[in-house]
């Protein structure tokens, strides 16, 4: 059993490299698609990386009166994303850190990052920071239970909350992927992922209009390397969420054993699936207007109900 663990370690390192290296490109791809559909030339998909490089070279500043909370938040945000990127089953299910890839641990880690950023927004003491933090907290209070419930619905037939086990059982039994349970859970998860990553009907990622922004309001005071960290982390979160969605509902292509061609296919499948989902999201955003903030809890409560129905259905239609 020595060889699989070597491949497991390789898988973990590959997943980290892919998520770090490709997530800014994913953002670039989505912006480029949007630009083209709106009739603009667009800056090219490498632009987020160029922005990050520029920000990294700048001097580090922090507003007067801010505490350690403000300085630690970007690090915490990046760190939680990296841990999730390492443990979740993206490229291979035979990961060396497999036992850590528990549903509750992963969701808690992702939420920890959001909470850190919300606290940082409060810490600056500006009106926008507080407003953004309060909105983000409203959203996360409904997003987190929905996410837990939706993935839990998938874990009921499997009998394990380990993400790799859920993905593997989806591979073994394709009928499970097309059941009403996974249909309801998929819809619920798509809605919360859109809300959580601050995409269009909930939050507009490209606006700096005071009254509408959520995520941008919290990071308004960041600059230089700190802003680069926040931007990188939010790109990584998007990749992580889309990767989870892809592998939970379309598990085919993921490496289940350790050998070079299988892992290569796993990498390719993951990149393609995330790129396709990102493209779909970007195309969808062109046709959507931002939802009124007071309607957002309604959307999220709806997706929570769908998640709960998925759990209920996985029990009574078993």
């Amino acid at each position, binding site marked *: 059993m020595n060889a699989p663990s070597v491949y497991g370690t390789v898988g973990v390192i590959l997943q980290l490299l892919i998520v770090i290296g490709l997530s800014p490109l994913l953002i670039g791809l989505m912006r480029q698609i949007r630009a083209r559909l709106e009739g603009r030339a667009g800056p090219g998909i490498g632009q987020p990386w160029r922005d990050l490089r520029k920000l990294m070279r700048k001097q580090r500043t922090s507003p007067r009166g801010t505490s350690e909370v403000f300085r630690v938040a970007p690090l915490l945000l990046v760190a939680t994303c990296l841990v999730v990127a390492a443990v979740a089953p993206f490229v291979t299910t035979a990961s060396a850190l497999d036992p850590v890839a528990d549903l509750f641990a992963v969701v808690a880690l992702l939420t920890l990052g959001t909470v850190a950023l919300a606290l940082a927004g409060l810490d600056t003491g500006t009106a926008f920071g507080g407003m953004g933090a309060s909105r983000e907290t409203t959203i996360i209070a409904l997003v987190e239970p929905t996410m837990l419930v939706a993935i839990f619905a998938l874990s009921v037939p499997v009998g394990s909350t380990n993400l790799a086990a859920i993905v593997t059982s989806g591979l073994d039994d394709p*009928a499970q992927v*097309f*059941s*009403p*349970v996974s*249909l*309801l859970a998929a819809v619920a998860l798509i809605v919360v992922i859109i809300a959580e990553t601050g995409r269009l009907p909930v939050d507009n990622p490209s606006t700096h209009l005071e009254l509408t922004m959520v995520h941008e309001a919290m990071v308004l005071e960041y600059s230089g390397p700190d802003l680069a960290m926040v931007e990188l982390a939010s790109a990584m979160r998007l990749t992580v969420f889309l990767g989870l969605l892809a592998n939970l509902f379309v598990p085919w292509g993921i490496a289940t054993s350790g050998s070079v061609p299988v892992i290569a296919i796993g990498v390719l499948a993951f990149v393609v699936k995330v790129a396709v989902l990102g493209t779909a999201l970007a195309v969808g955003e062109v046709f959507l207007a931002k939802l009124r903030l007071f309607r957002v*809890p*309604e959307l999220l*409560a*709806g997706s*929570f*109900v*769908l998640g*709960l*129905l998925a759990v*209920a*259905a996985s*029990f*009574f*239609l*078993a």
Partner: protein
Amino acid sequence: MSTALYTQLLNLVAGAFLLTAVLILWRRELTGIIDVFALQGVALATLVGIIAVAEGSAELGAVAVGVLVLRAGVLPWVLRRAAASAGVAQRETKPLVNVVSSLLAAAALTLLAYAVSQPLVELAPSPATHAIPVGMAVVLIGFFVLVTRRLALSQLVGFLLLDNGITAVGFLTATGVGLIVELGVSLDVLLVVLVLQVLKTRMREAFGATDLDELRELHD
């Protein structure tokens, strides 16, 4: 039809049936609600059709066609006419319980339905009886719509939802209650809807609105 495929299809249709009930709670525009209600009629007819194929019963197949015509065709058509006669697109702007709470209530009602129908399921466990909680949940959600909505038309949809749920439970427990009984019940429902539509028109002529809360006070 193999048992596995039968179970899979039954579960899928039951899921769609429940989903449409929740969507009715979610939507605000009356025309949207009626569209979703028509979809639910299709889901119910498909449910009956699947049971008919599994049982190999031609009578049940005829009932499925009847259900499709009545619940996905005639009733939505009558409702659409009633909505159109009211003029501008009506919206359920202020239900007694707001949309977020009613969605959460629907979740609670589904769990309640699951709890109360457990003894029924245990009597004769089969793929069809396992879906009884879905029918029960639609009954409860329909009742919830009936008591919390203000517009006459959305209360009518609530009543029809209740009836859809009862029909579904009937087919899932006893694979139908006989053609004559089903025909009688369906005609009754149609009659109720027609009578209520006439009542609604009279109300609108008398009071200018169909908000039933206005009927609490006496007028000259």
